[in-house]
C-alpha cells in the first residue's frame, strides 16, 4: 500500500501544473524488470521496479517556486511479496526570496554539511548574500531507509546550522553544527569546519575538520592541496585523519580506538582531448605498526568519436589484506544505439581469512526509440567464492518528458 501511495503522490505532482499557470514540467520514468540470485538462499529472483522523478519548475509567476519529487516502488515476483516503496525526496523549493537573500526547501530533502548529513522530513534554509556571509539552518525527522521499508519514528531527528563566508575571491569558509537524535535521545552532536581557497590560479588548498562533542574527540581531519602547474596536469596531495566514534548510547563508546591516518598523492594528465591518464598512491596507517599501501593507475581513451575505453588497475598491500584488480570497460555508439561491456578481475587475500579471485563480466545495450523513449538491457555474470556463475541484470524502458 505504501508503494501505491508513493506512485499516487508523484503522479499528483505531475498533474499539479494543470491547475496552475504555465509551469515547467520535467518527468522521468524508468520501468525495470530485474533478475538476480539471492545471496542467502541462492535462489533466482525476479523483481519489477518503477521509478518516477518529477520536477515542476516556475510554479509562481516570478519563477522562484519549484517542486521536486523522486521515488520508486518495487515488487518481487514471488507470490506473497508485497510492494515496497521508497520516497527519496519530495520538496518545495523557493529560491532567491527577499531580493536574492533566501533559499528555502520544505519537505523531504537531503541536507549535507561537514557536521552532519542525511535525509530529513523538514526544512532547509539558506540565508545568503548577507554581505559576504551566509547562514544555513535545517531540521526535521531523520529519514532512514531499510532494505524493505523506512524505519524510525518522529523521535528520530536531524538538525543543524552553518555560518559561511565567501570572502576574499575564491575562498569559502564554513563553520557548521549538527545533531541527531534516536528515539528522542541525543545520539550524535558534531561541529564541522571546512575551508577552500585558491590563493593563486595554480593552487587550491582545502580542508575539513569535524569535532564530535559526544565522544569529546576530533573525529575527522582532511587537509589537501591541488596544484595545476600546467594546463593539462593536475596534482593533489592529501592528509586525512579519522577516529571512529559511535552513537552516544552505544556500548562501543566505552572502548579505546586508534586513529586512521592516510597520506595520498595523485595525478591526472590530459595527453590530448581524447586520452587521459591518472595515478594515485596512498599510505595508510592504522596505528600499532599496521599499515597499508594503495596504488592505482588508469587510462581513459577515445580513439575514435564513437568509442570510449577505460582501464584501471589497483594494487593494495597491508593491514586487512591484499588486493590486485583490474577493471576494463568500453562503450561504442552506433547512431541511436550504444553497446557497452566490461570485465572486472580481482585477486584478493584477506588477512587470516578468505582468499581467491572474483570475476565480473557485463554487457549492455542502450537504444533510443524516440527522443523521449529509451530501452536498456544489461546482463552480468559473476564468478566468485560464492557462485560459479551468478547472473543478474535488468531490462528497462525509460521515458523522459
Amino acid at each position, binding site marked *: 500500500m505504501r508503494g501505491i501511495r508513493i506512485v499516487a503522490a508523484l503522479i499528483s505532482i505531475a498533474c499539479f501544473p494543470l491547475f496552475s499557470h504555465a509551469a515547467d514540467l520535467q518527468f522521468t520514468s524508468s520501468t525495470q524488470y530485474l533478475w538476480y540470485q539471492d545471496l542467502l538462499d541462492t535462489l533466482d529472483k525476479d523483481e519489477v521496479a518503477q521509478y518516477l522523478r518529477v520536477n515542476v519548475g516556475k510554479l509562481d509567476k516570478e519563477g522562484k517556486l519549484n517542486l521536486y519529487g523522486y521515488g520508486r516502488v518495487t515488487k518481487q515476483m514471488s507470490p506473497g511479496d508485497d510492494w515496497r516503496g521508497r520516497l527519496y525526496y519530495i520538496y518545495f523549493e523557493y529560491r532567491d526570496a527577499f531580493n536574492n537573500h533566501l533559499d528555502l526547501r520544505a519537505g523531504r530533502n537531503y541536507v549535507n554539511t561537514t557536521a552532519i548529513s542525511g535525509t530529513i522530513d523538514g526544512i532547509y534554509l539558506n540565508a545568503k548574500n548577507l554581505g559576504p556571509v551566509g547562514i544555513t539552518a535545517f531540521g526535521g525527522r531523520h529519514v532512514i531507509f531499510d532494505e524493505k521499508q523506512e524505519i524510525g519514528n518522529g523521535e528520530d531527528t536531524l538538525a543543524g546550522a552553518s555560518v559561511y563566508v565567501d570572502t576574499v575571491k575564491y575562498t569559502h569558509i564554513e563553520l557548521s553544527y549538527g545533531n541527531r537524535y534516536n528515539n528522542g535521545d541525543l545520539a550524535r552532536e558534531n561541529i564541522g569546519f571546512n575551508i577552500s581557497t585558491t590563493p593563486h590560479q595554480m593552487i587550491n588548498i582545502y580542508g575539513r575538520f569535524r569535532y564530535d562533542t559526544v565522544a569529546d574527540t576530533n573525529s575527522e581531519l582532511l587537509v589537501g592541496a591541488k596544484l595545476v602547474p600546467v594546463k593539462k596536469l593536475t596534482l593533489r596531495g592529501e592528509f586525512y585523519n*579519522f577516529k571512529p566514534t559511535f552513537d552516544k548510547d552505544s556500548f562501543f563508546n566505552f572502548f579505546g*580506538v586508534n586513529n586512521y591516518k592516510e597520506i595520498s598523492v595523485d595525478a591526472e594528465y590530459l595527453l590530448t582531448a581524447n586520452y587521459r591518464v591518472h595515478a594515485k598512491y596512498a599510505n595508510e596507517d592504522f596505528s600499532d605498526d599496521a599499515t597499508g599501501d594503495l596504488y592505482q593507475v588508469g587510462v581513459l581513451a577515445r580513439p575514435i568519436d564513437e568509442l570510449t575505453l577505460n582501464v584501471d588497475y589497483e594494487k593494495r598491500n597491508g593491514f586487512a589484506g591484499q588486493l590486485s584488480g583490474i*577493471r576494463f570497460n568500453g562503450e561504442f555508439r552506433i547512431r541511436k544505439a550504444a553497446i557497452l561491456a566490461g570485465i572486472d578481475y580481482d585477486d584478493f587475500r584477506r588477512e587470516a581469512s578468505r582468499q581467491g579471485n572474483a570475476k565480473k563480466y557485463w554487457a549492455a545495450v542502450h537504444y533510443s526509440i524516440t527522443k523521449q523513449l529509451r530501452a536498456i538491457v544489461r546482463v552480468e555474470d559473476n564468478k566468485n567464492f560464492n557462485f560459479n556463475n551468478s547472473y543478474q541484470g535488468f531490462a528497462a524502458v525509460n521515458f523522459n518528458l
Partner: protein
Amino acid sequence: MSKNMTLKIILLSTVFLISIACLSFARTNHRDYRDSKLGEDCLDCHVGSGVMNNHGPFFAREHSVLAQKAGNNCADCHEQSYCLDCHNGGNIDTDARRSLSRRGEAMPSTHRSHFISIHPIKAADDPQSCFRCHESKFCSDCHLQKIAVNRSGMSIKPHSPIFVAPSVLDPSWTAGHAADARRNLQSCQGCHPEKANCTNFLCHPNLGGR
C-alpha cells in the same frame, strides 16, 4: 594542542575572516553547460579562473569537499536523485557503466567485483567511507542473517576467545583481540551490534550503553 585551544583557533579564524570581508564574487551558472562533455572543454574556463577543474578520475573521493559547501552549485547540473542513487540506493537513469547491486542500485566504483568477498579490504581504505552511505545496521542486518544461515561460510578471521584454563584467557589472544578492536572497532558492529552480542562471555561486565 588541547581540544579547547583547537576550537578557539577555529572560532577566532572565522571571526577574523568575517571581519575582513571583501568582495563576494559572481558565480557562473553551469546550467548552460550541463549537457557538455566533461574534459578539455572545461579547461577553457577553469585554468587560470581561480576555480580548479574537477570531476576527474578521483571525483568520487573529491566530491564530498565540494558538496558540503553551503551554496554550492551542484544543482546547476545535478538533481538530488544523482546523489541519492548512490547514497540511498536507486538507478532511475539506468547508467549501465556503474557498479550495480543485485537489485540494480548504483554503487560507487569502490564496489568492485564480488564486493562481499573483498569489502573487508576495501573498507580499510578510509573506514569512514562506508558510513557515508550505510547505517551500521546495514552491516549487522546482513551479517546476522548470514550467521543464522551459514556461520562457517562467513570466512571471517577467527577471533573466538582462547582459554588456557577455565575463565583464564590466553594472554596472546587478549593482546591480539585488543589490537584488532582498537584498529577496526567499527567493523565489530557488523556481527555484534549490541552489548549482549559481545559480552556474553562476561569479559567486559561493567560497560555502559546499549
